[in-house]
């Protein structure tokens, strides 16, 4: 297999007295989807915030292409080709769809000091990207983001990261707010990104989604990597148990299944 694009070596993170991550060592390889699994509060979001330059590790090293490379800011991460969809936010309620899509990397026309923001092109690209997610209701890039539904906004944020993620695409629970159609589309996009040789880090609480795209799985329990395995090395049931923080889900699953059976 190829060398890792992005690697964490013995990374720790604490907020004041609260230790959130312990000795995390992980590798993200080109053309591979790494699924980060774990219970609520396990530290997944914190971990990817370190990968995207939002937080700085308390100790430990971030390597890019095998070279130690601190990411002091989100800008530094995006200059390394790392694009992230965070769990919350990412869009700007009072901005137009086009402007929100291109925020920070606005397309321009003209030359020299007279470069102007190319509104028409930005709107066209943004609307196209969002419509590809099956959200055909949106056809005007000048509409304000604040008027969109939760899922529509989430699709916009994902479309943005996919559009700009040059080497690493990090998605924190991207499908959580999405409808069946949109979620399926996100999974298809993840596969497409993988095929194009990007490294993808994917966080989800849905086993089916994880198994549909993951090549490699890392399970966090209380801030430490509790399991790290390849596709096919564990069964669906084992993964489910791990996602639940190591608790045996057998009984719970059975319960739900039995209710479904009654249906």
């Amino acid at each position, binding site marked *: 297999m190829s060398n890792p694009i992005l690697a964490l070596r013995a990374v720790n993170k604490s907020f004041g007295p609260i230790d959130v991550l312990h000795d995390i060592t992980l590798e993200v390889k080109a053309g591979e989807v790494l699924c980060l699994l774990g219970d609520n509060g396990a530290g997944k979001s914190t971990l990817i915030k370190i990968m*995207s330059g*939002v937080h700085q590790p308390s100790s430990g090293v971030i390597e890019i292409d095998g070279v130690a490379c601190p990411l002091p*800011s*989100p*800008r530094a*991460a*995006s*200059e390394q080709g790392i694009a*992230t969809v*965070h769990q919350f*936010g*990412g*869009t*700007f*309620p*009072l*901005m137009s769809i086009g*402007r*929100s899509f*291109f*925020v*920070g*990397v*606005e*397309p*321009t026309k003209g030359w020299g000091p007279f*470069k*102007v*923001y190319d*509104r*028409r092109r930005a*709107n066209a690209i943004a609307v196209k990207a969002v419509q590809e997610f099956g959200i055909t209701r949106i056809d*005007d*890039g*000048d*509409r*304000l983001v*604040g*008027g969109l539904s939760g899922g529509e906004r989430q699709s916009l944020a994902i479309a943005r990261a996919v559009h700009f993620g040059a080497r690493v695409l990090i998605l924190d629970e991207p499908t959580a707010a999405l409808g069946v159609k949109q979620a399926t589309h996100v999974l298809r996009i993840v596969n497409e990104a993988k095929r194009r040789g990007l490294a993808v880090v994917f966080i989800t609480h849905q086993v089916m989604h994880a198994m549909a795209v993951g090549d490699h799985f890392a399970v966090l329990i209380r801030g430490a990597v509790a399991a790290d395995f390849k596709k096919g090395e564990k069964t669906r049931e084992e993964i489910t148990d791990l996602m639940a923080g190591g608790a045996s889900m057998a009984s719970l699953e059975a319960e739900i299944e039995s209710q479904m059976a009654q249906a």
Partner: protein
Amino acid sequence: MSSTISIGGLLRRPEAGAALGLVAVLIFFAIFGGMTFLKPAGMASWLNVAANLGVIAIPLGLLMISGELDISVGAMVPFGAMTTAVISGHYGMPIWIGVFAALGFGVLVGLINGFLVIRTAVPSLIVTLGSLFAVQGIVLGLTVLITKSTSVALATEGPAKAIFGDFVMGGQLQVMVLWWLGLTALYIFFVHFSPFGNWIFAMGGDKISARNAGIPTERLTMMLFVLSATSAAFVGMCQAILYNSAQVAGGQSFIFNSIIAVVVGGVLLTGGFGSVVGIFFGTITFAVVTQGIYYTDFDRNWSSLIIGVLLLGAVLMNNTFRKMALSYAPKKGGK
């Protein structure tokens, strides 16, 4: 289709409410103030006020769009004026040294404001309230120490007078009006056409997401604070040159006045929404309201009341339009 002009499209612009508000107060004063108010001399009267306010209000408005506030402009106006007057009036050095020193102090105070806001996460209202007091103290202390007086005279001639503090176009308009128009055009370009403007709106909309999107929010915040403090020092400097004198006191009215102009201009106090053209209209509206009173026959004792009521009216009109903007979407043909 996105470039055709529709009524819906016009109404959802942040400046729509401000423009209508301006038309309303103009009509009001045309009726009650008579025609003197719209003759050149009358127009110059509110244009001059608008210009001095506007040069400060636009950068302050940008700060507000980005989610911050700068109260210290109230002290920067006398600071700029006094710096010029002390250097070029009291010490008699060339006027250009006074001009650059005034602007230089503006940059310095802006940097300090910006630095404190970024590093400490103290709300900018409070940081700049602190620097308002501190700068007021410095201006008073230093001026008295140096000149033994709180009012310093300054006589300027030559190009500096013509560029910064003279009257143009038949001796009615302050040269500040030209500065104001020019700066407004520049701001419109940078805020609404250059990519850079997008960042300010993003910051005001959601600072964390903006930072996560790779926008250098800290550098931008610094820049905006520098811009507002320097603009205020610039206005003070020009006033000192125009009126041949600088006072330690004064300038505080710029604080509320420019906030009013900005908000009447359709900028959302909580950030993320607004436009330079709107602030431009808001500034004129404010100037018309405060100066228009003098052309009417209303008892002067009631002018505060009239200003208060007109302001509330303008903001209400404005707000109606912002609501329409947010819920606006082009109607589809069929369902």
